[in-house]
Each structure stands twice: as structure tokens, then as C-alpha cells.
């Protein structure tokens, strides 16, 4: 029982991140409205970014900006004092790409509404099969 408890305490974050990813995936597959599908896609993307950033965390470490910029030549910089900067930098690019995709998807939704006057997927399917 106690090592189940230590297992939960060590890994509960990962389980919650997986739950968040699955909520986003469910929104993308099962919802009818196109805008809700886009929202589900964005929830999925931010959950993955959250997972990546959490890998780079170290216990009792501070933010990745050098503390004493001027006398760093004397004291050695220990890598265990700062959190991992590599995961943060990769995820910056991911956030930029996600906002570009979101803006473009909204433009596509507006265009679809101009043409078919609806944004529900089953009505769209009916109108497409009528043409």
C-alpha cells in the first residue's frame, strides 16, 4: 500500500496530463460544431506543451536566468541549480505554431459559414451531398 502511495505521489502529474490530452482528443473527434473541434485541437496542443515543460523541471532549482551575471567567472555555475532551458525553448516554437494554426482555422471557419450558412458537421455533410 505504501509503495502504491509513493508511486502516486511521484507520478500523479503525468496522469493528469494524460487525462487533459484525452479530453482534447475527445473534443476533436466527437463534437459536431467545427469551432468546438478547433478548441479541442488547441486543448490537445497545450496539454502536450505542458507535458514537455514538466519534464524539464528540477527540484529546488530556480528560473533559467543567470543569478549573478558579473561574478560568474569566480564561482562555478552548477547545472543542478537551474531548470532545463532546452525544453522551454522548443515549446516556445510550439506555442507560436499553435497560434498561427488557430488564426488560420478561424479564417477557414468564417469562409465555410459564408458558403454554406452553417457550422454543424452533419448539416454540412447533408448540404455537400446535395450539390
Amino acid at each position, binding site marked *: 500500500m505504501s509503495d502504491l502511495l509513493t508511486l502516486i505521489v511521484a507520478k*500523479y*502529474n503525468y496522469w*493528469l496530463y494524460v*487525462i*487533459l490530452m484525452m*479530453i*482534447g482528443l*475527445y*473534443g476533436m473527434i466527437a*463534437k*459536431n*460544431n467545427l*469551432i*468546438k473541434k478547433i*478548441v*479541442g485541437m*488547441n*486543448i490537445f496542443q*497545450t496539454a502536450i*506543451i*505542458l507535458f514537455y*515543460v*514538466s519534464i*524539464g*523541471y528540477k*527540484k529546488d*532549482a*530556480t*528560473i*533559467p*536566468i543567470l543569478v549573478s551575471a558579473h561574478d560568474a567567472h569566480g564561482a562555478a555555475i552548477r547545472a543542478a541549480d537551474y*531548470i532545463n532551458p532546452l*525544453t*522551454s*525553448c522548443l*515549446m*516556445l516554437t510550439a*506555442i*507560436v505554431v499553435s*497560434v498561427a494554426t*488557430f*488564426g488560420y482555422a*478561424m*479564417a477557414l*471557419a*468564417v469562409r465555410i*459559414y459564408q458558403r454554406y450558412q*452553417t*457550422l*454543424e458537421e452533419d448539416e454540412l455533410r447533408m448540404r455537400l451531398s446535395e450539390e
Partner: protein
Amino acid sequence: MHWPIDIIVLTLVIFCAIAALSVRDLLGTAILFGAYSFLMCLLWTIMGAVDVAFTEASVGAGVSTVFFVAAIFRTSRRTKD
């Protein structure tokens, strides 16, 4: 890092995500989505990744919500599901 803050913010994030996908009014989805972005930004600040948090605050809770509301303004606001 204090684990109660982590648990509370993560639970709120999951509630916001489920609520944003279930509400029938698309303006409510936009506001809940903005709240979800803010809570994510808070989570990343707790973990120490301040650059990512800054980017998510300016992009997700700023510009992304504005795009969403502008798109709803030009399409319909009600949805059946």
C-alpha cells in the same frame, strides 16, 4: 514547489477544459478558453518556465481570445451541441 498549489490549479484546468467543450453558447466557450489559457500560464510559472508562461499569457489569453470572438461575431453564436 508546493504540491497543493499544483493539484488545485491542475484540477481547475481540467474543469475549464471540460466546461469549454460542453457549453452551448460559443461566447461562453471563448471566455472559458481564455480562463484555461491563464491557468496554464500560472502552471508554467509555478514550474519555473517563465518564458513559456509569458508567451502563453500574451498569446493565449490575449490575441487568441480576440480571434475567437471576432470569428463568432461573423458566424453564429448558438450551437446545438
